[in-house]
């Protein structure tokens, strides 16, 4: 009887979840309310958390609450601090949430909301949350060491080195693709460009304030900063309409690219207190506040979805990015379903702050469920706007032309009825001159957020404010990630190069730092630039590369966890990690192969390179290139992209080899061979 009572509520939640998901999956023709998707996702998260994560904690990992964590054993009040689980949850979530879960679902919406939504929900439960939770556990049992270190100690020196170089390349691609999103959002947008430029000045003021005027007052200075930020959004509207200032802040994509590259270099060599730290405060609080606000607004507004459940573009002919449902939806939505980048966070600060192993479940598994919810909100936001507007914003000019007449014509022929007037009016509503061909996710999301927020606060007259608020919110944390990433990349590079040239290792040497920073910025700057001049719009080539590399890293993390389970002699439970790892390997290898070798130039890098090479041989210049030199550039860029994809395939395959070898070796042993820090009991009261 007791057992029935205990599970009755959960059975009810399961029924609600299944019913909602059924409604989402089977709705055809009639409009679906966003609350169905939200209810389905939340109920399934709750049930998965209650049962599956408990199974992993109790049976697979055998969490031991009596075992002292690194935070307890090595408590120094600084890096290792036993932290309240709710405080740590906030810290961990703020560290994993970023542009990824917002942009991926928006791009995936071109296939309709259904495929992406299903992958977000299923992916997080079986792959993403499992990975974050397991890596947190594995790292906690090993003094909070980093992923690269863990691979080195559990799998060996060579795979450790491969993982390290792989992580660096991923970092470069992430920085480039993030910067590309900002470029796409700010091109020909004086309002957006002004507000983003204003954040630099605001952050520097905050930096001086918290360094000299009122040191350490993080809350106070952040409130001042947020007020200034809002003021700059309001002022941006005036600037955009100003006869002199308006054109002064209007830049094309190439100019913005150069500005970002130069800015990235300067920002990452400035002292951290001046620019990076204060902007980190702003972006973190704005990010968390906006996510909470969006969740509340969504429940309050309960918008209807206007995007169809499934569009004809599941066949791979979509305008934002090319490639069929399998494997491309699974790499387009990376963060939100499963993200290898989280393995770096789960083996970074979080394990050093965990007060007890038993809380790893809430922070690792629970934190990722929360991130997945952000992805669901992004999917909903992209689906509430007019599909015609969605496709106008996400198709490259090469497909829909560069004026509203041709765009409306092409998109209406696809079956998404739209008039040129609606496109013009939408641009006007959000305070922009054009919304055409702004692929990259951020602007589309901003239009959706503006529609939702303006229904709560301010009405249609506030659309332009909310649009630029949303653009700023994304640009702010993307730029923070760029600075922090360039800095981290610089240290990684100094570490890597230091193995060959010892002088490069000195992080306090100006020359070594400048060289490493320059190399790092040059690397992501080059990839960013080629994305901007890419004939298919940049997102089409860079986002899949990012997705492949991110999912590859997740695969590596899950393979590491598999090896650890085998070494712990728990191989009967290893399906928990083998299942998602296999799926990720299948997806990344298939997608990687197609990106390199597919005969369709929209998908295959080599096919596109060959197409341009053939034109060069005939002496023809193909758009968007304007000269033979640019033609050669496009050929080279696509060969480079192909090489990167081949590199990722190499990393996956070699890691698979080392994983199988390590597992077989562990099977032959009759004792536990994992490299855990020896057991030490929790102090009696802590």
């Amino acid at each position, binding site marked *: 009887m007791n057992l029935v009572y205990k599970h009755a509520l959960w059975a009810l939640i399961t029924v609600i979840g299944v019913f909602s998901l059924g409604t989402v999956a089977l709705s055809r023709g009639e409009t679906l309310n966003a609350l169905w998707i939200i209810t389905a996702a939340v109920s399934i998260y709750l049930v998965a958390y209650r049962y599956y994560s408990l199974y992993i904690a109790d049976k697979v990992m055998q969490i031991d609450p009596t075992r002292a964590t690194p935070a307890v054993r090595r408590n120094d009040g600084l890096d290792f601090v036993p932290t309240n689980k709710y405080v740590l949850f906030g810290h961990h979530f703020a560290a994993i949430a970023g542009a990824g879960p917002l942009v991926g679902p928006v791009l995936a919406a071109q296939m309709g909301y259904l495929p992406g939504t299903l992958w977000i929900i299923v992916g997080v439960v079986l792959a993403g949350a499992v990975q974050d939770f397991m890596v947190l556990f594995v790292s906690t049992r090993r003094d909070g060491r980093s992923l690269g270190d863990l691979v080195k100690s559990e799998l060996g020196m060579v795979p450790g080195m491969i993982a390290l170089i792989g992580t660096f390349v991923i970092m470069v691609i992430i920085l480039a693709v993030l910067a590309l999103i900002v470029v796409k959002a700010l091109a020909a947008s004086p309002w957006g460009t002004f507000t983003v430029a204003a954040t630099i000045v605001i952050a520097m003021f905050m930096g001086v304030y918290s360094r000299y005027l009122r040191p350490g007052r993080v809350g106070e200075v952040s409130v001042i900063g947020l007020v200034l930020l809002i003021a700059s959004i309001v002022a941006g509207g005036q600037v955009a309409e100003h006869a002199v200032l308006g054109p002064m802040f209007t830049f094309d994509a190439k100019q913005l690219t150069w500005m970002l590259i130069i800015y990235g270099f300067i920002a990452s060599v400035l002292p951290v207190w001046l620019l990076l730290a204060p902007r980190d405060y702003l972006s973190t609080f704005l990010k968390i506040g906006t996510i909470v606000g969006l969740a509340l607004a969504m429940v309050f507004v309960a918008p209807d979805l206007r995007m169809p459940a499934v569009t004809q573009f599941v066949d791979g002919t979509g305008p934002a990015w090319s490639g069929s449902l399998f494997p491309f939806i699974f790499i387009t939505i990376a963060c939100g379903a499963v993200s290898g*980048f989280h393995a770096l966070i789960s083996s*970074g600060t979080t394990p050093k702050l965990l007060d007890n192993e038993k809380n790893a479940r809430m922070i690792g598994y629970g934190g990722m469920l929360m991130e997945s919810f952000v992805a669901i909100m992004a999917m909903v936001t992209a689906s509430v706007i007019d599909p015609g507007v969605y496709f106008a914003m996400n198709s490259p000019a090469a497909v829909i032309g560069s004026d509203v007449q041709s765009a409306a014509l092409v998109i209406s022929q696809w079956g998404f009825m739209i008039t040129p007037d609606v496109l013009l009016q939408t641009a006007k509503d959000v305070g922009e001159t054009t919304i055409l061909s702004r692929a990259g996710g951020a602007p589309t999301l901003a239009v959706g957020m503006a529609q939702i927020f303006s229904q709560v606060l301010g009405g249609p007259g506030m659309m332009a404010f909310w649009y630029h608020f949303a653009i700023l919110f994304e640009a702010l944390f993307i730029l923070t990630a760029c600075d922090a*990433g360039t800095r981290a990349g610089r240290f990684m590079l100094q570490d890597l190069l230091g193995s060959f040239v010892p002088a490069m290792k000195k992080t306090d040497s100006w020359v070594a730092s400048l060289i490493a920073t320059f190399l790092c910025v040059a690397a992501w700057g080059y990839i960013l630039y080629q994305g901007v001049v890419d004939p298919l719009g940049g997102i089409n080539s860079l986002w899949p590369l990012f997705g492949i590399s991110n999912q590859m890293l997740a695969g590596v993390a899950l393979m590491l966890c598999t090896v650890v389970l085998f070494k712990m002699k728990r191989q009967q439970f290893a399906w928990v990690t083998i299942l998602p790892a296999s799926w990720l390997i299948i997806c990344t290898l298939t997608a990687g192969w197609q990106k390199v070798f597919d005969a369709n130039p929209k998908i295959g890098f080599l096919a596109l390179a060959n197409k341009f090479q053939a034109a060069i041989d005939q002496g023809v210049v193909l758009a968007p290139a304007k000269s033979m030199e640019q033609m050669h550039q496009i050929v080279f860029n696509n060969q480079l992209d192909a090489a990167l994809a081949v590199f990722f395939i190499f990393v996956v395959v070699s890691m698979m080899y080392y994983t199988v070898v390590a597992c077989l070796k562990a099977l032959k042993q009759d004792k536990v061979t994992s490299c855990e820090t020896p057991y030490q009991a929790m102090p009696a009261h802590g």
Partner: protein
Amino acid sequence: MARLFSFNDLSTVGKYLGQAARQMVGVPDYATYVRHRRITHPGLPIMTELEFFRNRQDARYGAGRSGGCC
């Protein structure tokens, strides 16, 4: 009937919210640090709140951090 909440609870919630916000940007609790130093390393120097803040700021963006997320 037990009260649903007291002002004490509210101030605890406020304290944790403040701690969570600071922890999000990499600044751990100063009082916890001071208590730890007093108990575990009595007699050894303790950083002032300002030194502590700067130390944490440098640590967050220094070597060994993996950067923001995607």
